[in-house]
């Protein structure tokens, strides 16, 4: 523990961190929650908008069926009780990113309640309770214009459907928070409910955190950190805020209930300037939308259509493809990678080979380019073709890796690429023999070294031959012929 300003901390107090999360997830619908505008990410400001999502007077919302399906599917997957008669409410507050000055959300009758998600941290299993899941609309985007010192308002995101998943305050560490978020993200991706692209803001978390002395019954005063959208920052924020609160208490201070902003660069949180008015959202039932009545049959049907979730998929990979548990775990850790795996195997078979390309090369390239697995954009047919070329012996593994980088970045077609760049393996022993003889002639010292017993010189000579053949030669063949040549001359 730390020391500060010469003051001594009170001895040996143990603290427990109590964390609850509110996670906002953008649903993977084609259109917005209440109008037919596209939910496509990006676009010129205010071009994915219509009179309805910009809150023009007299316009009315009509609910997107898919939003209810997705929200209910998420609720079911998280073991929630689905609210049979649910309803929307208006949450009223003024802010320029909210064109109607109210957000259509659910307060009184959210679509799901009382669920839970099982997580595993350091081998220990634990269920994190889900307090509720509700549907709502996203707000617009505010951009600062430094030239005129004003704020520009873009409503493209306005009305994109969200579900908010509110956990119980059941988490006790950053590790648990990350495990919960990973699990949540996977579940939603597997359900097809959201792409959970954090860099596009499809998954954002608000962290409610408090600390209390170990063994205490009452919760401490909590703070809220809003709109966190990277797992790493979330982990740092949890630890940073925990430390800040403990230090405050240790030095006789008091935690104030407030909203704070985590500054990942400075590694600390700051109190947000409190809004001018009280948070009194004056919720009331949305009169422009009629209630939902979710029938038993509809729910049963929805349940029956539920896709294979991660744990089932992992088990199936081990069983069906005879993959090691380790491989199955990594492949299924992202829905995008698992999909890619299955589609590629469907084209070319060879599950272990496909798995290797995804687990090793793909992961390495993702790391290098600081991308998330969801951003993988190459097509399974090109990976399958690459594996085919290797199998035929048309290219060697070194060349294959090079080509794969091109596939990863530009989704090139390997067959065309190989032809265009003349990368096919040199199978012609005549041509190879020619190259070998040239290399041996050019490097008499190495030949002498080899013959003098320095077997290492062999490696250098192989390299030279490969260079001469622009890497197209089959290294095994080079080795063999070189050996024959050297031994033969002796």
């Amino acid at each position, binding site marked *: 523990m730390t020391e500060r300003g010469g003051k001594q901390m009170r001895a040996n107090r143990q603290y427990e961190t109590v964390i609850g999360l509110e996670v906002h997830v953008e649903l993977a619908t*084609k259109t917005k929650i209440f109008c037919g505008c596209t939910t496509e990410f990006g676009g*010129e400001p*205010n*071009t994915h*908008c*219509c009179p309805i999502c910009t809150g023009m007077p007299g316009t009315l919302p009509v609910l997107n069926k898919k939003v209810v399906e997705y929200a209910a599917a998420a609720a079911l997957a998280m073991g929630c009780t689905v609210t049979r008669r649910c309803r929307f409410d208006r949450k009223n507050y*003024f802010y320029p990113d909210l064109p109607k000055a109210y957000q259509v959300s659910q307060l009184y009758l959210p679509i799901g309640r009382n669920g839970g998600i099982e997580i595993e941290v350091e081998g220990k299993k634990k269920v994190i309770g889900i307090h509720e899941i509700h549907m709502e609309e996203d707000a617009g985007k505010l951009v600062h214009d430094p030239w*005129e010192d004003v*704020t520009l308002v873009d409503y493209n995101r306005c009305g994109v459907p969200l579900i908010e998943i509110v956990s119980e305050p059941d988490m006790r560490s950053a590790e648990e928070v990350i495990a919960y978020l990973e699990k949540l993200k996977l579940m939603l991706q597997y359900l097809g409910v959201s792409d959970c692209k954090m860099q596009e803001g499809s998954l954002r978390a608000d962290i409610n955190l408090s600390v209390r002395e170990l063994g205490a019954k009452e919760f401490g005063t909590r703070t809220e950190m809003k709109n966190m959208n990277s797992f790493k920052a979330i982990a740092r924020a949890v630890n940073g805020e925990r430390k800040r609160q403990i230090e405050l208490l240790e030095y006789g201070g008091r935690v104030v209930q407030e909203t704070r902003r985590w500054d990942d660069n400075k590694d600390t949180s700051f109190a947000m300037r409190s809004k001018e008015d*009280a948070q009194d959202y004056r919720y009331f039932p949305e009169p422009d939308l009629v209630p939902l009545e979710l029938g038993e049959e509809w729910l049963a049907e929805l349940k029956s259509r539920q896709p294979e979730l991660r744990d089932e998929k992992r088990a199936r990979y081990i069983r069906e493809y005879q993959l090691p548990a380790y491989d199955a775990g990594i492949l299924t850790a992202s829905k995008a990678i698992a999909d890619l795996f299955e589609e590629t195997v469907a084209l070319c078979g060879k599950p272990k080979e496909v798995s290797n390309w995804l687990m090793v090369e793909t992961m390495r390239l993702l790391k290098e380019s600081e991308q998330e697995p969801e951003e993988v954009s190459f097509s399974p047919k090109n990976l399958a073709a690459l594996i085919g070329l290797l199998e035929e012996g048309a290219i060697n593994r070194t060349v294959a890796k090079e080509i794969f980088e091109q596939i990863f970045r530009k989704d090139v077609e390997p067959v065309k690429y190989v032809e265009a760049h003349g990368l096919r393996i040199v199978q012609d022993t005549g041509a190879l023999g020619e190259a070998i003889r040239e290399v041996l002639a050019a490097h008499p010292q190495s030949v002498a070294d080899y013959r003098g017993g320095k077997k290492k010189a062999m490696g250098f000579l192989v390299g030279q031959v490969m260079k001469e053949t622009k890497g197209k030669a089959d290294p095994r063949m080079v080795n063999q012929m070189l050996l024959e040549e050297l031994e033969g001359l002796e």
Partner: protein
Amino acid sequence: MKIEDKTIEYVAALAKLELSEEEGLTHERARGDLERILAYIETMNELDTEGIEPMSHVFPLKNVMREDVVREDMIRQTEQMEGRQIRREALLSNAPSQKEGCFVVPKTVE
């Protein structure tokens, strides 16, 4: 119900209204009006509503939903992107202030 000054101030702040001190709907008049109107409204407490479900919607309409299909009805006979630009112009046509295809408000970002 007695309405305090601070209640009027609070409610006006929620509604983003400034009540004048001199003319029109003054603070004092608003307070008086609200007090009288609320006193009248409270007569509904005479009605016994024990066991009655609050009724937000009068008719049993339910599950009104649309399919998840992109509809950009204001775009007609134009290429999609061009259509979106036209639509943006229409949406911004009533804005008191606009810049670079956006509505403009005083600085909000800290």
